[in-house]
């Protein structure tokens, strides 16, 4: 980062990325999913183009049965794209993920972390 930019950030002349009056992540899991998708890409398990192809497929299949006016949950598609890609690459089977998800959902409250 340039010194110029650093000083602008420090004295608050430049707003942080999320402060444009809109929130980029509505819920913490969305941020986490984005972080996982980028980490795995940076670690070389897939290229971003491969991820993009899965994301486009998810979005297209949703749009095929829904209108523009219906509520659209971008990060649902993003998460589905990531889990598809993990299965496609043989890194994490969907069945295994389903099982773990069920086990986590069934945890007694207060013992789920």
């Amino acid at each position, binding site marked *: *980062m*340039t010194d*110029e*930019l650093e*000083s*602008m*950030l420090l*004295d608050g*002349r*430049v*707003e*942080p*990325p*999320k402060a*444009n009056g*809109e929130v*980029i992540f*509505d*819920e*913490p*899991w969305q*941020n*986490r*999913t*984005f*972080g*996982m998708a*980028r*980490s*795995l890409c*940076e*670690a070389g398990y897939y290229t*971003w*183009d491969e991820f*993009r192809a899965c*994301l*486009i497929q998810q*979005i*297209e299949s949703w*749009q095929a049965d829904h209108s*523009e006016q219906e509520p*659209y949950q*971008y*990060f*649902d598609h993003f*998460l589905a794209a*990531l*889990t598809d890609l*993990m299965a496609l690459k043989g*890194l*994490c089977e969907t069945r295994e*993920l389903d099982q*773990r*998800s069920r*086990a*986590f*959902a069934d945890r007694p*409250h*207060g013992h789920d*972390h």
Partner: protein
Amino acid sequence: MNDDQKHHDHDHDHEEKSPQAIRTEALESLLIEKGLLSEHAVDDVIANYAQRVGPMNGALLVARAWTDAEFKQRLLSNATQAIAEYDFQGGQVDHLVVVENTPERHNAVVCTLCSCYPWAVLGLPPKWYKDPAYRSRIVREPRALLAEMGLPLDKKIEIRVWDSSAEVRYMVLPMRPAHTEGMTQDELAALVSRDSMIGVEVLEASSRAGQPS
């Protein structure tokens, strides 16, 4: 707050967890067990995008282009090369194209298929950018949509919409607002909004121009 209350609130948060939140947690736990991911790496990525990747980087380029004709020329002819010296993080600028707004032509950026966006210069895209309505309407009826978004453009102004492809990412070079003569690059950068670099806003002679910096 006493311990009982704390405990209660903590449990309550977990009861509210959505199926997506649980699935995300399950996926992360499996990938960590398999040695594909570390919690630390995910935290680092998140912190990086939250703190270092954002529209302040694009704003810096715009302000420099306004004051440095030679840089502007380089930015418009090969943006990826022109920004290499900045070492911006975040990626998605391997084939960056910067398109210039003029009094005759207004540019806007979209990704019709998903959500492609030049992260290293604009940060992560806002929610509306990813919505089906923006993605289709900005192509189908850009003038009407921009007007709805608060940017009514004169009919004489041509509108060009740039659709991201597998490789190419776009950023708009907005026009420099009036009454900003004599401002430094830093002061100018502070006037540049994210939306003006997507092309859904034009920068007016800013009220912020008079503020002490």
